[in-house]
């Protein structure tokens, strides 16, 4: 087996074990309802985390996504409220805007050689600020198209729902996996993560790839914003604060190195599911106070990361021992 796959496998093993533990404690956790919820509730996070995976693989970071999601919701809501345009063209316009926004950040990062952390931090302020400027109120969305999308789900046996947005996330993951691991663009992303200077010397189009990566992240943040607007039927400028950190955590739990150059899009899906599992577990438990909730989330995050590391170290040791023997 290829040792490159180890971090991913470790994540999967941990997820399965964790789920089994949850199920032993709360048998209701293994219902299609919970599984459907994990997918639906994780949808917007999952989509944005795919974009984040690309960014992190390239050695960058995108702090703007949470704000872009909020901006997208507000933008869609305002457009639907103030103009008679059908949602679909509004979506297209929005995706164009967020993609351009991402591309612009990528361009600044590349041309001005500024650290992504800071550029996207400014982007985070800007996108949230633009959302405020559009509207500080939360704006409900009422449109037949939204009603239709919300009722478009497949009722799994056991009353669980596989919703359209959950399915969208899965589709985005499939596309992301192909793009990252099976295209030249994907290889270039990994190359940037391995070292920008070296990648440049090897003929990787550094500028174009950087711009494309952040554009992709912007695009997916926009898409995630649309999904979020379906999820809540509203646009709200204060929504999704801190989602960028959730996305980063999901990516890292999924076995991608924050230093770039190594990781898996599929691992991110597991990361998102693990984050959802933690939430669900805490709700099922239902006895934790606000503060204990935070402490337990932190402790579980730590546990996952330490376990993953331990698992990797053990397998690495085994492998070297086998080679020697």
């Amino acid at each position, binding site marked *: 087996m290829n040792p*490159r796959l180890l971090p991913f496998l470790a994540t999967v093993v941990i997820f399965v074990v964790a789920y089994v533990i949850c199920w032993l404690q709360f048998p209701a956790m293994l219902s299609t309802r919970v599984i459907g919820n994990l997918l639906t509730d994780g949808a917007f996070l999952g989509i944005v985390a795919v974009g984040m995976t690309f960014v992190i693989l390239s050695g960058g970071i995108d702090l703007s996504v949470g704000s872009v999601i909020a901006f997208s919701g507000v933008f869609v809501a305002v457009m639907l409220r103030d103009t008679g345009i059908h949602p679909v063209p509004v979506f297209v316009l929005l995706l164009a805007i967020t993609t351009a926004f991402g591309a612009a950040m990528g361009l600044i990062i590349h041309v001005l050689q500024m650290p992504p952390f800071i550029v996207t931090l400014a982007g985070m302020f800007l996108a949230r600020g633009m959302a405020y400027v559009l509207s500080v109120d939360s704006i409900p969305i009422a449109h037949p198209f939204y009603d239709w999308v919300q009722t478009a789900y497949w009722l799994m046996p056991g009353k669980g729902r596989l919703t359209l947005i959950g399915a969208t996330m899965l589709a985005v993951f499939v596309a992301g996996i192909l793009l990252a691991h099976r295209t030249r663009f994907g290889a270039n992303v990994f190359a940037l993560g391995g070292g920008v200077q070296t990648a440049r010397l090897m*003929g990787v189009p550094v500028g174009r790839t950087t711009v494309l990566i952040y554009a992709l992240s912007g695009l997916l943040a926009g898409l995630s914003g649309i999904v979020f607007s379906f999820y809540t039927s509203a646009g709200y400028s204060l929504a999704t604060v801190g989602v960028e950190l959730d996305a980063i955590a999901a990516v890292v739990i999924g076995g991608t190195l924050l230093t770039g150059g190594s990781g898996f899009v599929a691992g991110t899906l597991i990361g998102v599911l693990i984050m959802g599992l933690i939430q669900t577990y805490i709700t099922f438990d239902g006895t934790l106070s606000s503060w204990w909730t935070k402490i337990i989330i932190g402790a579980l995050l730590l546990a996952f990361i330490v376990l993953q590391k331990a698992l990797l170290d053990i397998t690495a040791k085994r492998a070297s021992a086998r080679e020697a023997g």
Partner: protein
Amino acid sequence: MSESQALLRTEGLTKTFPGTRALDAVDFDLRAGEVHALLGENGAGKSTLIKCLTGAYRRDAGEILLEGAPIDPRDTQDALALGIGTVYQEVNLLPNLSVAENLLLGRQPRRVGLVRRRAMNDRARAMLARYGLSIDVTRNLDAYSVAIQQIVAIARAVSMSGRVLILDEPTASLDRDEVAMLFDVVRGLRDNGLGIIFISHFLDQVFEIADRVTVLRNGRLVGVHDIGGLDRLRLVNLMLGRELAEETRETGRGGIDYDAAPRLRFSGTGRRGAIAPFDLDVHRGEVIGVAGLLGSGRTETAELMFGAAPMDCGSVTSEGRPLRLASPRDAIGAGFGFSPEDRKTSGIIGDMSVRENIVLALQARQGWLRRVPMRRQRELADDFIKRLDIRTSDAEKPIGELSGGNQQKALLARWLATNPEFLILDEPTRGIDVGAHAEIIRMIEELCASGMSLLVISAELDELVAYSHRVIVVRDRVHVAELVGEAITTDAIVKAIARPAAEAGENAR
């Protein structure tokens, strides 16, 4: 040398860095179907010249003509598109990608936009087979030694060069066999009409493969010569601009009292998966050479002895007292020093100045509280810059901006500054020019005369023969033979490397 013959030409190429004029109006021409060696001391501007050719640097002035037409590569992609393939001095591949991906990055075989993995791996295997390498191409590049990475880099560059192939010190970490293999490939390409630029500090190799040489000194063109009209001495004079006293070794190889108690005794030390347990005594004033093929476990031996890779069996004594070697700090505390093989990732602190790099080990040993006074730091740095002839505009220049060979010298200085009792040098002369090479060998001998013990790993057997009192031969991660005194000859070493283990054992000592 008519105009039509020139495949690649530069006219008045100039490149300035803050504080240095790396290239000063250099004219250079490369013909189709020749191997053209580019020679010069460390810091002469060779790497800079080729980086200007490939667009990695933007030149300040001058023309570049490819087949008579001016070209202006803005980045390396342009150069690749023009059919100029390059192996840069430091291995410039991506450690986090698989070998196959490194070989075919940007040219992966595709079907409907998706990379065909299997086809890619097959192609990669085929590419490496030419160099006698059959490794798992799906593993990450960083699973392999520097030498293998070097070969992969060469394979990649060769496959991308339609018209020109540039090799910047490709043989620095290769063994004879690999070098021979590489030269076969290069000759084949030359016969197919490619122009090849070859940079090396191994003059033997230059004489073996080159058709013409261009010599640079301090960023200026010194001359262009056909190899036929040159001898070694002449070439060295051209490069250095002065006479180099050919070192005549006295046969003072004795003088080590093997009956006295050794300074250090490694008994049964080893590490699973890295190097089999071995015994080794280190005596005062002794130079121990370590020879072996690529990946045989030489570096592992050194890292183990320095505590960089903890041993899992055996014990060490120093002057009869037990010594704990769990980390480099322990080793340094016991008076060890270690100059690692991969200077880019394990040696230099790129963003920091030459001065800081030189005092680093000394400072680390003194502890953070007792700062080496600035005056002393400057003295040390200036002293070593002078003694080792490190070419830098001043001691405050970031070491990353020095030429490769000069970085190596600064690393040596780092350890000499700590005045160690036992110094381990892994490939200390890699990428160092002839002048400095002689200087370093003289220094090794001086150091030993003053009582320091040395363990030197080198792929250059001549060099090992020149200064070793004893040579350890490593094969397949086992110390298989030990040659002492007059028994040390190039032939003997080659034989020990090649001979099966059982026989080699008999010959030890």
